[in-house]
């Protein structure tokens, strides 16, 4: 057993067990904290895949920002245990079965597709050789990521900037809005 193998199995445990806890625990605060654990595990999985910068971004964005917002909102509401955690009835029973079916289907599909090993390697694709070299030496490949992001995907980057601006404006407006048709009081 090499170090990487042990790490992979340990990390998949770290990822999957809290993920199950997110779905199964009835207290939403515990769910949120389990999700934080999953996010940290996913960051570690990124690190085993040589995506060091993305692992850091996962930590900063997900555990440091998004999940803080989730936990803050949960504490703002002060929800205890959900009265009715899971959905009931015939329709939702069907949904449960369908969910398990999709799970099985995805697993089988993934395994069968992957074992065929289609050649997805783009021969001579730009930066591929650099990435291969970086992967072999275990060095930081953020510079390759940056070159790709800012030279080849500049339009997407600018559009995301606009999107973030629109969302900042929208959320402020949304949380400031008053009135509406369904107000109870």
């Amino acid at each position: 057993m090499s170090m990487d193998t042990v790490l992979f199995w340990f990390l998949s445990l770290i990822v999957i067990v809290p993920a199950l806890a997110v779905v199964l625990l009835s207290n939403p605060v515990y769910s949120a904290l389990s999700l934080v654990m999953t996010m940290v595990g996913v960051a570690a999985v990124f690190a085993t895949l040589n995506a060091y910068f993305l692992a850091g971004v996962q930590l900063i964005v997900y555990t440091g920002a998004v999940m803080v917002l989730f936990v803050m909102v949960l504490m703002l509401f002060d929800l205890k245990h959900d009265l009715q955690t899971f959905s009931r009835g015939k329709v939702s029973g069907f949904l449960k079965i369908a969910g398990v079916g999709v799970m099985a289907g995805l697993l089988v599909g993934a395994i069968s597709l992957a074992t065929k090993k289609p050649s997805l390697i783009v021969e001579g694709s730009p930066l591929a050789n650099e990435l291969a070299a970086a992967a072999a030496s275990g060095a930081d490949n953020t510079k390759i990521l940056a070159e790709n992001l800012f030279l080849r995907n500049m339009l997407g980057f600018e559009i995301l900037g606009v999107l973030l601006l629109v969302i900042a404006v929208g959320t402020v407006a949304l949380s400031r809005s008053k009135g509406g048709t369904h107000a109870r009081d």
Partner: protein
Amino acid sequence: MQEISLLLAVGLNHYLILSAILFTIGLSGVLLRRNLIVVMMSIELMLNAVNISFVAFSKYNYNPEGQVIVFFVMTIAAAEAAVGLAIIVSIFKRFKEVNIRFFEHLKG
């Protein structure tokens, strides 16, 4: 012999299966849970599962585009969480309730 090599030689398949399991857990969370916030968290789980497979493909196919896409997905996911939670909070302020069963009122 087959089982032992499956355990020892970690490759692309392993990461894909991990991603598939995580995605399915997230999907069942969306389908089964009734708390809106937990539903949102399950969506985050699904997005993370997709990210794992992107990064795995990026590593094993030597293609940096995968990592850039993950970067974009993270941005979109965070933006989605921000908007979603803003909506949930304004719903909660009005109805004092975050159970989806309750939102049948919002019909028509």
